[in-house]
């Protein structure tokens, strides 16, 4: 394994204290029922989100989203001239996405070096956002979307999509529609919308043993799905059901996102002359 010479290094090997929990006690915290653990939230409810635009002073556009304890910040730079001219298509702009998880954002400490997982997340984010952006309006330029997950308490990728599209809108990039993200976890017959970390990683198998996770990105005004990924075990019907639930979830959050954008636009608008 290559050694990172550009960061201060700790011991060669260190272990999360969670690996040494006395057996038995480890998972009890995770297996709580949603209703008892999360106040009045039903299985099909999404967490209330707190969103705000324009927090990063240096960026063209930025947004911050908090859903429960999941915290995501995103900034957008550009459009600016593409760096690598050779491989770019001249007629359309290029969208770049970079998703990073802060090392302290998960239960287990992450590494700074971008792993394959983060690249995959970036890819999903990119493919979810791209249908929403009018890239043909930005020939020869590139737009960079940088996302940092500060705390992962479940469904961070879905919220990263929403956050990134808010930041794009804040940057004044032309878009067909905002892109909303929502995630669901299926365990047996139950669908849990917008799951928390504990719900996502519930180790107790359901009676039927089928578990799956799904993340969906939706453009609500156009009713188009721009991103979809699911893994685990599921039959087609339950997959469709979970996808529909996620779409519902997106529609529920849509007004909040609209309000957030309106608010940031109003703030930028010059005061009415009176």
């Amino acid at each position, binding site marked *: 394994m290559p050694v990172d010479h550009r960061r*201060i290094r700790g011991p060669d090997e*260190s272990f999360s204290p969670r690996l040494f929990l006395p057996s038995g006690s480890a998972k009890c915290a995770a297996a709580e029922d949603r209703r008892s653990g999360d106040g009045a939230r039903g299985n099909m409810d999404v967490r209330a989100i707190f969103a705000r635009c324009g927090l990063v002073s240096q960026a063209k556009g930025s947004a911050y989203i908090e859903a429960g304890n999941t915290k995501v910040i995103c900034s957008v730079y550009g459009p600016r001239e593409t760096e690598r001219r050779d491989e770019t298509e001249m007629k359309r702009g290029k969208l770049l996405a970079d998703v990073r998880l802060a090392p302290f954002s998960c239960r287990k400490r992450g590494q700074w070096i971008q792993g394959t997982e983060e690249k995959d997340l970036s890819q999903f984010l990119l493919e979810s956002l791209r249908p929403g952006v009018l890239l043909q309006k930005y020939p020869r330029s590139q737009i960079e979307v940088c996302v940092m997950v500060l705390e992962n308490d479940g469904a961070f990728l879905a919220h990263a999509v929403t956050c990134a599209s808010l930041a794009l809108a804040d940057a004044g990039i032309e878009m067909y529609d905002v892109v909303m993200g929502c995630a669901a976890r299926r365990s047996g017959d139950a669908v849990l919308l917008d799951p928390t970390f504990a719900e996502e990683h519930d180790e107790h198998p359901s009676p039927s043993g089928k578990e799956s996770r799904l993340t969906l990105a939706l453009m609500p005004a156009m009713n188009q799905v721009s991103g979809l990924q699911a893994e685990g075990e599921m039959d087609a019907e339950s997959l469709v059901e979970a996808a529909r639930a996620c779409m519902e979830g997106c529609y529920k959050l849509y007004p909040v996102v609209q309000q957030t954008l309106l608010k940031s636009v109003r703030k930028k608008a010059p005061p009415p002359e009176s």
Partner: protein
Amino acid sequence: MAAGFKTAEPLEYHRSFLKENCRPDGRELGEFRATTLNIGSILTAEGSALVKIGNTTVICGIKTELASPTVDGPTKGYVVPNVELPSLCSSRFRSGPPGEQAQAASQFIADVIESSEVIQTEDLCVEKGKLCWVLYCDIVCLDYDGNLLDACIIALLAALKNTQLPEVMINSETEQPVVDLEKKRPLKVHRHPVGSSFAVFDKTILIVDPTAEEESLSTGLMTVVMDEEGRMCCLHKPGGTALSGEKLQDCVSRAVARHTEVRKLIDKVLESMKMDT
């Protein structure tokens, strides 16, 4: 007109303000930007703090892990600080491995930790020669508008004060550690280093807490780190315009005052957190 002047002749623009003993954002030369602090907002970290100095935003999260100590220091744990300047925080940084500035900042923070003895690594020992704690202090800049180092030190200090270590025992039979997440003890913070950064304009004018633009226009930067006893933990001046001893003395007195301000702020936030619970 003013906007045009600012972009066309940024240096002249700043000079015109400095002549009047004030700065483009309305501050006096020796005035810091508003500093806000939020402690313990990241629940996945064992300790965390978010600091804003004006626009500059820095977040520090501390993760604790267990490891075996080195042969040289069997009773010592590890403190591993790293400063990250992701592409998110400013267009001047590229994604990818940290650049020179981030690396120099990481080294600076490591030096401050070592010099000030804010943490005594002996406190992190669980069992001599066998097991100790590693404190990974990851400091991420979310918005870069100058004066990174001050913000990093405050974030680090506040996060350390917020850090709790779970109880660890070594099972005598299996020789495996057993962790009890329910029982936690706060980390002991021995000293309170606070930094103050200065920028030198035109070789003579000293301003505190420079913004990103002021940093790039200045001819030299300097950071002074003081602890509560009025001793200096670190004087960091990576180069730039030469300074006389007298000028240094001025900076030190400003840094002493700043220490009191920041100390008060941290105590106030910690106090209010206690009230809440």
